[in-house]
C-alpha cells in the first residue's frame, strides 16, 4: 500500500529515468556525453522558465497563456535591434523587459479586471505581439554580436586559467551545493523532530538525500568536462527556486491554488480573485520576456519566427508534470520534471536522428499519455 503510493507520487520521475535510460541506450551513450548533458538544460531554458509562469495560469483554473511565444519574440526582437543600433546591453535588457511587463500589465488587467476570457485574450495577443515583433525586426533576421550581452546570458563560469574540458571548479561548486543541501535537509529533519512534528522515516529521507546529492555531483562533474557552469543555468535556477518557494510556502502562492480550487469560496474567504488572475498573467509575461533574452543570447540572432509554438512546450511541461487541467493542483517541482522529460525526449530524438515529423508524433503521444494517466489515477483515488 505504502510502496504503491510512493511509486505513484514519483511516477513522472520514474518515467523520466526510464526515458533517459532508453535514449542513452538508443543513442549508444551519446546522450550522456558531457556536451549533451550541459546542453540539455540550456536548450530547454525557455521551457523551464516559462513553465513556472504557465503553472500559475493553469493553477487558476486550467487557463493557459497562448501569447508567450510571441511575447518572447517581441522582447528578443527589441533587445536585438537595440544592440544593433549600438545601445548598451543594459538598455537593451531594460527595453525588452519593459515591453514584456507592459504586455503583462495589459493582459493581467484585461483578464483579471475586465474578465476577458484568458484563452481569447492571449490568442489575440499571440497574433498581436508576433506582428509587432516582425515590425520591429522589419521582417529580417537580426544578429547579436555584442559580447557583453552574450556574456550576461550565455557564457560559462570557470576559474581563470582553467581549460574548457577540465573545469574542476564546477565539480567543487557542485560538491559544496550538495553539502549545503544535505545540511539543510538534516537540519529541517531534526528541527521537526525536536518540535514534535510529524516526520517521514529517517531512512527514506536519507535515500532521497543521497540521490539528490549524487545527481548534483554527477551533473557538476559532467559540466566540468565541458565548459564549466553555464550562466544560463543560474538564471534558470533563480527563477525556478523563487517560483517553487512562492507557490509552496507563501500566502501569495496559496492564492493561485485557492482560486483554481473554488473561486467563489476564495472570494468569500476575503481573497480577491481579480488580483490573482492579474498576477498570474503579469508574471507569465515577465518570464516570457526573460526567456526572450535567454533564447536570443543562446541562438545569437532573432527572426520573426522565433518562439513559434514555445507556448505549447511550456503548457505541455505543466501537464506532463502533473498540473491539473482543471486548476488547483500542480507543483513547480513536478513541472520541472515534466520540462526535463520533454527536453530529454527532444534531445534524444535529435541525437538519434529521428525525422522532425516523427518527433512531433512522439511528443503528442507523451503529452496525451501523461494527461490520461493523471485523469485515470485521480478518478481512482477520488473514489477511495
Amino acid at each position, binding site marked *: 500500500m505504502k510502496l504503491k503510493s510512493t511509486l505513484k507520487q514519483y511516477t513522472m520521475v520514474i518515467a523520466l529515468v526510464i526515458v533517459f535510460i532508453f535514449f542513452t541506450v538508443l543513442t549508444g551513450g551519446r546522450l550522456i556525453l558531457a556536451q549533451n548533458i550541459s546542453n540539455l538544460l540550456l536548450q530547454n531554458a525557455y521551457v523551464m522558465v516559462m513553465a513556472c509562469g504557465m503553472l500559475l495560469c493553469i493553477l487558476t483554473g486550467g487557463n493557459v497563456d497562448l501569447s508567450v511565444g510571441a511575447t518572447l519574440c517581441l522582447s528578443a526582437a527589441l533587445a536585438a535591434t537595440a544592440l544593433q543600433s549600438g545601445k548598451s546591453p543594459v538598455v537593451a535588457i531594460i527595453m525588452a523587459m519593459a515591453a514584456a511587463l507592459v504586455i503583462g500589465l495589459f493582459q493581467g488587467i484585461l483578464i483579471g479586471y475586465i474578465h476577458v476570457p484568458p484563452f481569447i485574450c492571449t490568442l489575440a495577443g499571440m497574433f498581436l505581439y508576433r506582428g509587432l515583433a516582425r515590425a520591429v525586426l522589419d521582417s529580417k533576421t537580426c544578429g547579436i554580436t555584442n559580447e557583453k550581452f552574450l556574456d550576461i546570458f550565455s557564457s560559462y563560469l570557470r576559474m581563470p586559467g582553467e581549460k574548457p574540458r577540465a573545469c574542476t571548479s564546477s565539480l567543487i561548486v557542485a560538491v559544496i551545493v550538495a553539502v549545503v543541501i544535505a545540511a539543510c535537509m538534516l537540519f529541517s529533519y531534526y528541527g521537526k523532530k525536536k518540535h514534535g512534528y510529524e516526520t517521514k522515516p529517517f531512512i527514506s529521507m536519507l535515500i532521497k538525500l543521497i540521490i539528490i546529492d549524487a545527481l548534483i555531483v554527477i551533473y557538476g562533474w559532467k559540466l566540468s568536462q565541458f565548459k564549466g557552469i553555464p550562466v544560463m543555468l543560474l538564471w534558470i535556477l533563480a527563477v525556478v527556486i523563487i517560483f517553487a518557494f512562492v507557490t509552496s510556502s507563501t500566502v501569495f502562492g496559496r492564492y493561485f491554488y485557492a482560486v483554481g480550487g473554488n473561486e467563489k469560496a*476564495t472570494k468569500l474567504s476575503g481573497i480577491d480573485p481579480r488580483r490573482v488572475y492579474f498576477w498570474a498573467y503579469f508574471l507569465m509575461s515577465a518570464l516570457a520576456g526573460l526567456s526572450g533574452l535567454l533564447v536570443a543570447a543562446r541562438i545569437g540572432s532573432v527572426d520573426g519566427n522565433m518562439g513559434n509554438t514555445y507556448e505549447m512546450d511550456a503548457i505541455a511541461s505543466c501537464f506532463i508534470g502533473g498540473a*491539473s487541467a482543471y486548476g488547483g493542483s500542480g507543483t513547480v517541482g513536478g513541472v520541472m520534471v515534466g520540462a526535463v522529460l520533454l527536453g530529454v525526449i527532444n534531445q534524444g530524438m535529435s541525437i538519434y536522428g529521428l525525422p522532425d515529423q516523427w518527433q512531433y508524433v512522439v511528443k503528442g503521444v507523451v503529452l496525451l499519455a501523461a494527461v490520461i494517466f493523471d485523469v485515470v489515477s485521480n478518478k481512482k483515488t477520488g473514489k477511495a
Partner: protein
Amino acid sequence: MADYILEMKNITKLYPGVKALDNVNLKVERGEIHALVGENGAGKSTLMNVLSGTIPYGEYTGDIVYNGEVCQFHNIHDSEDKKIVIIHQELALIPEMTIAENMFLGNERKNRFGKINWNEAYKQADENMKKVGLKEQSSMLIKDIGTGKQQLVEIAKALSKDVKLLILDEPTASLNEKDSKMLLDMLLKFKEEGMTAIIITHKLNEVAYVADKITVVRDGSTIETMDNKDHNIDEERIIKGMVGRELSNRYPQREHNISDEVLFEAKDWTVYHPVYTEKCMVDHVNFHVNRGEIVGFSGLQGAGRTELAMSLFGKNYGSHISGQEFIRGEEVHLKNEKDAILHGLAYATEDRKTNGLILSDTIARNTTMARMEKISNRFGVIDVDKENKVAEEYVKRMRTKTPGIFQKAGNLSGGNQQKVLLSKWMFAEPDVLFLDEPGRGIDVGAKYEIYCIMNEMVKEGKAVVMISSELPELLGMCDRIYIMNEGKLVGELEASEATQERIMDKILSSNDEKEN
C-alpha cells in the same frame, strides 16, 4: 405473504480500507413509501447507488431481487430499463436548457433517424408537469424556476420514464417547509396510483408524515425496520437507532447570557439584484444582534435572508446597496470580503460545496484559508508546521471525523464538511458569525455537535446570526427570531413567544397584506 417489489440481500460493498456496506438486507413492499434514515456516511446513499447501478454489478457482493428476479445492473440504464429511477440530492438538471429538454435528456422523443420531435416532446412534458402539479410551460428554462420546482421537474422526468420504483435522496434538503409539504403530498398521491418509493431523508417529521416503513441504517448495516402504518412513530427510538446511543435532547442547553452591548446592527439595509438591478432583494431591513446572542432569520426560500447576509459581508452580493452597518456601535463601510473579515464578520455559506470549501484541497489548507496571515510571517511566508498544528486542533475541537488533516475536503461526508467550514470561520476569529443553514443536509448527531459549537461561540462573547428554513431548529437554538418575506422584515419574536404557527402566520399575513 407480502408482495415485495424489491429485496436486497446481504449487500456488501468495500472501499479501500472502509466497509461501506456490511451485509445489508432491505425489503420493500409494492406500493409503499419506504424511508431510509441514518447518519451521514451510514451507507444510505451507497446502498441506493448499488440499487440504481451507479455502483455496477461486480463491485459489490450480494443479490438484488427485483420483481422476483435476480438483477445485475451494470449501469444506470440497466436499472432504468426496469423502471427504477433515482433522483440524487444534487439535481441533475441543466440550467440553460428548457424543462422539456431536461426531461427527455438521454431519452429523447425521436424518430428512427434520430430526428427529435419537439412538438411531441413539449406536449408530453406539459402533461408530465401537470401530473406533478406544476403550471409552468415546459419551454421555460430550468434556471428561471425555483429549487423546489426543479425538484418536481426531476420527479416529472422520472414519470416520463414510467417509473415503478422511485428513489429520492434527500429530496427536501434544500426546500422550505411549504415546498417540502407539496413534494411529500405528491409522493402520497403517486403511492395511491401504485408507485413504490424509497426516500432518504434527515427530517424525521417528514418520515412520520409519508413513510409506511422506516429502515434505520448505521455504520453500513441495517439496524431495524419499523412499521409506520399509523404515522405515529417514536422519534426517540429512530434517533437512538441512528446514533447508537440515547440523545436526550436534540438542542443542547445553554445559559442565556445576553449582554446589553449591541455587537452588530444594520439600518435601512437595501440591496438590489446584481443582474436585474430593478429587482429589490432586501428592502430597508433593520436588525441587531447583541453580544452572547443567537438571532435567527426565518422565511421562505427567496425571502432575501441569504442576500441580506452576503451583502452585509463586504458587499459580496448585490448592487445599489444602501443603508448603514454598525459593528460594536461604530458605523463601518466594508469595501470587500477581506475588510469584513478584518472587522470581525464571518459568513458561513449555505452551499458549502460550491461557495464554502475547496473540495480538492486538504482540511488543513481549508481551515486557514480565511486568515492566512495568522500562520505566516510578515513577508507572507507560510509556516506549514504551524498550519498543520492549528488544523489538528480544530479537527479535535470540532470532532471532525477524518483519517487526518491531509484528507481532501471533498472526501468528507456532509456533516464533516460543515465542521471544516465552521473551523475555517472560527479560525478567522470573528465577533459576529452569520451561519446560513448550518444544519442543511446533515444528520442529527452532527447537527447536535454543530449546535454545541454555536453555543460555545456565544459563550465566548460572540454573536451568531442563524439563517434557517427549519423552524424547529430556529426555535430550539435562537434567543430571538426575525421573520423575512420577499425582502422585507415582517416580524420579530422573542424565543419565549415564538411558535411554528406564529412564524408561519407572520409570513402568510404579510403575503395577504400585499395582495389587498
